[in-house]
Every structure is written in C-alpha cells, then in structure tokens.
C-alpha cells in the first residue's frame, strides 16, 4: 500500500481532532496486519469506493470515546449509548470525507460509504486474505487504531 493512500487518512484525522476536539495527535509505529480486527470497544467501519477500494476501520477504547463525546457535548457521559455511538460515527464520517478530499487532490477520485458502528464486537473483517496497515494514533486522551486496507481499482 502506498504512503499516498495512508497520509490523507492520518492528516484528516489530525485536522478533525484538532478542529473538533482541540486534541493533538501523533503517529505511532506503523505495522502490517493479516486481519483487520476491531480490537477495542468502539469501532467504526468506513467503506471506500472509486479509484481506490477498501475499508477503513477506526477502533477506539471505551474511555476515549466517552471523553471525546464529553469534550464535544460539554456533558458527562458514562455509557456508550446511541448518542455516543452516532456522534462517533459522524466524526469518523467527517474524517473519511476530509481524507477523500485530500485523495482527490492526489488524483484518486473516491467516495465514502456511510459508517457502520460496532460496539463491543470483536469479529474480524474479511479482506480476502490481504494485508492491512495498522496505524496507531496517540493522543493525550487515549490511543486508538486506524486500520487501512485499500487497493487500486
């Protein structure tokens, strides 16, 4: 997978966290994974279609998304209810939309399929036995993973 596919997703994540949450992000160590596994409690899957096809999986720990929603709403939240999961899905959708804009600037015309949200489900996502890239993101409010699986049409 080329860096030019990955960077737009990292940069979009950085921009959106900065703008919406006032939270700074850093890249962790990139890794290749055989399976895309939602390894944390709150997971959002975005489908990518167009010049690039594939799946982006955001996997967040529970405490982190509760803190994200607390920052956005200004209210204490203690459970992942539909309000929390839907806010999280929209944030991921916004990151995906921004990443697609950046991909377009690199001449990859893509679109994002509306997010699917999985809470507390650890099933792995089928990628037809192909490898994905795991990009850990470090923030002062927690660490989460972005799994990226994209291939050219």
């Amino acid at each position, binding site marked *: 997978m080329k860096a030019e596919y990955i960077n737009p997703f990292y940069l979009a994540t950085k921009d*959106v966290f900065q*703008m*919406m949450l006032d939270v700074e992000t850093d890249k962790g160590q990139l890794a290749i994974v055989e399976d895309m596994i939602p390894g944390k409690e709150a997971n959002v899957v975005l489908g990518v279609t167009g010049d690039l096809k594939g799946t982006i999986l955001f996997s967040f720990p529970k405490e982190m998304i509760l803190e994200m*929603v607390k920052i*956005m*709403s*200004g*209210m204490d*939240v203690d459970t992942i*209810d*539909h*309000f*929390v*999961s*839907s*806010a*999280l*899905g*929209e*944030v991921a959708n*916004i990151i995906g939309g921004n990443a697609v804009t950046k991909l377009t600037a690199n001449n990859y015309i893509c679109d994002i399929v509306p997010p699917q949200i999985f809470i507390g489900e650890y099933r792995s996502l089928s990628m037809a036995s192909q490898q994905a890239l795991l990009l850990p993101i470090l923030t002062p409010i927690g660490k989460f993973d972005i799994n990226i699986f994209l291939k050219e049409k």
Partner: protein
Amino acid sequence: MMWKEKYKIGVPLIDQQHEELFKRVSAFIGIVQNKMNWEEKLESVKETMAFMQEYVVFHFDDEEVYQESINYPNLESHKLEHKKFKQAVENYAVRLDTEGYSEELVQEFSGRLMAWLIMHVGSVDQKIGEYVASQEGEI
C-alpha cells in the same frame, strides 16, 4: 456543547446565530440525555426538536442571503452542504413520525447533529470569515 471563540468568523450576525444554534442544540441534547424516564420527557423532546429544526433552517437561509450579498465564491457548494444536512434532518423527522419517537432514534439523531454542527461551524463556515477578511484587505 461549548461555544468557543475560535468558531467566530468575524461577522456578528452569523456569529450570534451560530452561538444561538449551539445553545439550542445543547438544550436539545441536555433533554435527550438527562436521566428522566423517556415517556415523561417525550413532550419536551418533541418541542425542543421542533424548535431546533426551525432554527437550523432559519439560520441556513440567513447565512445564504449573507453569502449572496458578499458574492461569496463558494456559495453553491456551501448551499449544497446546507441542503444535504436539511435533507438528513428531514429524513430523521419522517422516521420519527412514522417509526415513533424512540429514545434510540432521537439519540442517534442528536449525536450526528452535534458532530455535524461542530464540524460545519468550526471548519466549513470559517471559510466565509477568511473570504471576508481577504476582501477587506483589498479595499
């Protein structure tokens, strides 16, 4: 939802409406998320929702009139963003009417609304302020 100084675009009419919009959506979320029994608060949920929906449309219209008045170059794409969002709100309104005001559906709507509003005001609308500032620089 916290209103932040960084959301201001420097156009008082728009800034005041954005702040008001944040207050209304906050009030809506406050009611949806309080621990009261759903049936007991259903009437207030419906009232705040109607109130807020009306204000969203009112604000979008005002913002578009303002953008036209300054010959805003991104008017069409901005209108499209508003249109898509109004459509999403309408779709929820239809679902709530037909499927009933379930707590899950209202929560889902309020979560999306909150995130969308922060993004739209904090990012997309900032470009209006940048354009106005650039035009003033040329006078």
